């Protein structure tokens, strides 16, 4: 096998076939994909479907706790999950820069494969393009996914008293990426929380009827996700700071940089808005999942407030405003 991706790996000839066979089929092996059709053909049972797509460009490609491939699968799986769907099939499109090491591609494909197994999805269609050196930054991946929406999941209007559950700690993916990207050289355990959350739908079962909305707090983090929900339903919320779990290492980095972890991406957390009075019941179900053991009811929507507010540990309150810009480094 050649050590690096060459333009010819993308021209559709022998090298392309080899690449697909030696890497993608090796890891994404399933009868739908390897059926040598131009389209994946599969049977679906009746019901509602969810369909989503996302492109992943991340720097660095490999980070503590994951890589671009894991992220691409988790991103799409979690988007489907937030639509109340059990993810079934994914497609994966790769844009690779000439000169990219094949060994790295192998690692990426292998981690995609193991996450797919964990999430119970199959990659059934794909595409590879190779672009000239300098026209891309290593590798970009697009994933699209299709899933079956739970019959009892009905997103609906949020009203005062609806409870907010967050399924784990805050801001770990964004922080891990930040530290790696800028080589800040801080010591400590900074690992991305990147993980597929597809089990949430199955573990909730019929209980999902009490869930009014789900949202994965990726870009812009927990803060932006909550602000967006509050904006679109025109209702404020109150979040208890003491219920937000922020790992001490993450907290200290943000204290140092003057940034707020609530605005940093999570790639393995879900926000669930639950009908008033059903928070604890839903929480108890979700807590059973390995990746959701730190779930908490972090607050509630409340029409006494016009915006999303945080009740601080000393009883004060502050507004969580939407942050359109990337968090920036602060002097001092």
């Amino acid at each position, binding site marked *: 096998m050649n050590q690096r991706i060459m333009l010819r790996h993308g021209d559709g000839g022998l090298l392309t076939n080899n690449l697909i066979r030696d890497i993608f089929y090796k890891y994404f092996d399933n009868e739908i994909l390897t059926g040598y059709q131009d389209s994946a053909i599969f049977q679906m049972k009746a019901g509602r479907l969810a369909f989503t797509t996302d492109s992943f460009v991340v720097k660095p490609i490999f980070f503590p706790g994951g890589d671009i491939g894991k992220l691409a699968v988790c991103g799409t799986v979690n988007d489907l999950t937030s639509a109340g769907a059990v993810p079934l099939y994914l497609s994966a499109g790769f844009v690779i820069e000439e000169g990219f090491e094949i060994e790295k591609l192998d690692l990426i494909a292998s981690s995609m494969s193991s996450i797919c197994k964990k999430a119970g999805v199959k990659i059934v269609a794909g595409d590879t393009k190779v672009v000239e050196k300098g026209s891309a930054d290593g590798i970009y991946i697009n994933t699209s996914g299709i899933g079956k929406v739970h019959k009892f999941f009905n997103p609906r209007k949020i009203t005062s008293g609806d409870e907010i559950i967050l399924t784990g700690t805050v801001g770990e993916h964004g922080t891990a990426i930040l530290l790696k990207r800028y080589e800040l050289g801080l010591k400590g355990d900074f690992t991305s929380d990147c993980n597929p959350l597809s089990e949430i739908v199955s573990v909730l079962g019929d209980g999902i009827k009490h869930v009014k909305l789900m949202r994965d707090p990726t870009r812009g983090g927990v803060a932006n996700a909550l602000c967006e929900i509050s904006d679109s339903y025109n209702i404020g919320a109150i979040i208890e700071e003491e219920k937000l779990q922020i790992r001490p290492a993450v907290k200290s980095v943000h204290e140092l940089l003057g940034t707020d972890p609530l605005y940093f991406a999570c790639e393995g957390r879900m926000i669930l808005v639950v009908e008033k009075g059903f928070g604890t019941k839903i929480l108890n179900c979700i807590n059973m999942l390995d990746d959701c053991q730190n779930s908490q009811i972090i607050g509630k929507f409340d029409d006494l407030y016009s915006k999303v507010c945080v009740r601080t540990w*000393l009883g*004060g309150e*502050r507004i969580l405003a939407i942050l359109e810009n990337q968090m920036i480094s602060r002097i001092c």
Partner: protein
Amino acid sequence: MIEEDKLLIGKTVEKINKTITEDIRIMEICGTHTHQIARFGIKKILSPKIRLVSGPGCPVCVTEAGYIDALIKLLNYENVVVASFGDLLRVSGSCGNLEEQITLGKKVVTVYSPEDVLNLAQRRKGENIVFAAVGFETTAPLYAALIKMARKQKINNLFLLTSLKRMEPVIRFILEKGSVNFDAMLCPGHVAAITGTAPFLPITTVYNMPAVICGFEAMDIIASISILCRQLTGEVPVQLMNTYKRCVCDAGNTLALHLINEVFQISDANWRGIGIIIDSAFTINSDFEEYDALKKFNIEIQSSPNVFLNQCDCGKVLIGEKTPDMCVNFGRKCSPEHPIGPCMVSSEGACAAYYRYGGNKV
């Protein structure tokens, strides 16, 4: 620990709120205090009779437009890379900001610490790195150390364009203004950790205004406000107190002061929205002039008084005359996404903290 803090803070706040029966205004000089007060939601638990107003201690907010213009000008030189903290990127000069320069393909790199700059200079040997060295006494020693390190390592492609300000002259300036608009001062613990307590003494001895040197935890801030209130009500005499003894000693950090004195000299500075204040800057002295971007590229920083376009009230916010919400642009034309003035750019800025964390109104 937190439970105990909470109890203690609750009791202290209760007492403060009971004793304060007339409106009082306390200025926190330091941007980090502004930020922390907002983050802890402190205004919400204090009686509405106590108003906390922000002072001129956010380094980004007091950076004049002419300085940004100079950085932009340097980007036109071949082989110049400007290294800057992120929050300076969106501060506007008289025509545009550094962020726009990035989109024009100019070489602007965001850094997170002075060490990053040293690494950058080592990595990009063929280019001239100009570091936008902005800050107060807190960051000045780090910049001095950076310059000395560059000399030691014989790095000759690193230059600093400084905009380094001193706290004492601006405090005097505000207190000597005809109409002082506040009754007590919360003094910056970070600065005092370097300078010691002496620069803050005149607040109490010359101007007879209650003052406390304060740390950045909720407990520090509440305890300091409590002392200020007791001084204001006459319960204890007006005198400079230090509630941040764990970091601040009277003599300051002699090592850091030594570094500052070795590398910098005292000069006049133009404060955005305020104007020229005598002796309020640190600039690179002649012993280290080979690291001074002004000398290397033979440029000057033009004072541009005309920065308050669009009725930005930054100048008044910075000296405590107005709270951010009194500015007509606040939250309408001016937000962290589209900042008009620098107070909205830096997360330490009074307007940004007020916007983000809600000020008095939740």
